[in-house]
């Protein structure tokens, strides 16, 4: 199975643990990820609030750079995933816009035919294309007794109808059950982490983060699994500031779902990027998992 791979800027550095664990897990599952050569930033939400056509053209360059023999692209980051889907879908719905975007691409000697590439999220790919049997076969360290809250955030499940329910998604819950984890109820699993509001208006962002931490703590989750770099950053890096703001004392490790999947598959923890999270995850993993198959 070969897919084009669009890591996105966050995975290069601030969410390197996501990139490392995505590559390690994909390799083990026989998923060949071919990184788009010379990809550029998707602009997240910031270009759309200034200039629609430039936003679309910048994103479309990545679609146009995908090797002709590949017809699917995987984006682990929520913003990257949404933006690729959004531009592909806008171009399909609006031929006049598609033409304009292609005029922009032509200035860089590129072209993209809407619909040529199918944009996938990694969770969908692992859940659907790999599937339960193959996943269960690879487990060498069942996550028995580990209580996980599966956090989906916004842009992977909304607005495009896709592989999961937009309000109460379940695919990550199922995947974690396959590898033996105890999935806790987490009613706010598809609520917002505050996004870029942490940089614009802290009180609003901190309240949204607090709700998520509070909900996970109420259901006695040992850790929260993320699939979006922004969610991970807001919940992990801002956790201490949120604690000082509200006088709370949450210490909930926030990791990427691929990191925990890698633990279940017995991969080396260092190669999965453990140690990069600010609230450390290794103590609770060591405590809860009996006889870890791999250690740091």
């Amino acid at each position, binding site marked *: 199975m070969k897919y084009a791979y669009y890591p996105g800027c966050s995975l290069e*550095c601030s969410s390197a643990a996501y990139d490392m664990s995505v590559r390690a897990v994909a390799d083990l599952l026989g998923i060949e990820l071919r990184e788009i050569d010379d990809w550029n*930033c998707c602009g997240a939400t910031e270009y759309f609030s200034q200039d629609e056509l430039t936003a679309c053209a910048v994103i479309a360059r990545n679609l146009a750079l995908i090797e002709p023999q590949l017809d699917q692209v995987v984006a682990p980051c929520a913003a990257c995933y949404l933006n690729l889907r959004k531009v592909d879908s806008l171009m399909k*719905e609006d031929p006049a816009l598609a033409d304009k975007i292609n005029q922009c691409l032509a200035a860089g000697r590129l072209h993209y035919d809407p619909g040529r590439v199918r944009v996938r999220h990694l969770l969908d790919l692992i859940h659907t294309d790999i599937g339960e049997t193959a996943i269960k076969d690879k487990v060498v360290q069942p996550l028995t007794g580990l209580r996980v809250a599966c956090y989906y955030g916004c*842009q992977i499940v909304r607005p495009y109808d896709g592989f999961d329910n937009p309000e109460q998604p379940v695919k990550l819950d199922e995947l974690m059950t396959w590898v033996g984890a105890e999935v806790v109820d987490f009613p706010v699993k598809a609520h917002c982490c505050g996004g870029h509001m942490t*940089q614009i208006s802290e009180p609003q962002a901190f309240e949204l983060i607090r709700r998520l931490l509070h909900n996970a703590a109420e259901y006695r989750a040992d850790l929260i699994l993320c699939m979006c770099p922004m969610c991970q950053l807001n919940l992990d*890096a801002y956790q201490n500031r949120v604690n000082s703001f509200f006088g709370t004392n949450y210490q909930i490790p926030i990791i990427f779902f691929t990191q925990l999947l890698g633990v279940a598959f017995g991969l080396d923890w260092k190669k999965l990027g453990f140690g990069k999270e600010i609230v450390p995850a290794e103590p609770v993993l060591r405590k809860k998992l009996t006889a870890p198959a791999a250690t740091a």
Partner: protein
Amino acid sequence: MVGTTLELRGSPFLHEIIQEVPGGERIVRCLQCGTCGGSCPNGADMQYTPRTIFAMIAANQREKVLKANTMWFCVSCYFCVSRCPQKIPITDIMYGLKRIAIRERMYQDTDAPALAKTFTDLLDKYGRSFELGLASRYYLFNRPIAMLKMGPMGLSMFTRGRMSLVPTKIKNIEQLQSIIRKARELGGTQQ
């Protein structure tokens, strides 16, 4: 149009929004049900909820809408879009309002335009986002006091190898810049 509920004729601003936003013509289907505001994580902090904004657009209250804080509290979570019974692209309309407010410098009391501009300036220059450059430039010029509070967090990100001191530039930056120039020329906005 089937299902038209907002009055179209009297409001040039309504036509402007329809021009500005792909799929924006669906705004006229708004039933004023309020599901959007009720679903919004930041609805309580908005001066006007999206439902009210749509009624104000139909009433041609251009200046009041463009000076409102509503769109700056939209974090693109798409809850409203996924619940809207009329399938109005509410988030995209919020983006459209942000664009007009930025073009005409009508926004008030928000650092969101500065953050967006700093972010995309770096993208235009390097082809990739540069987090340290973004944070230092944005905070220094817009929130110098908040910058002090960011120090310990920045340091812990840095010691864990999560913050690069130098930007990454894509190989073919000229190609990206030609595409961006063309987009601006074809009706993109002045930056």
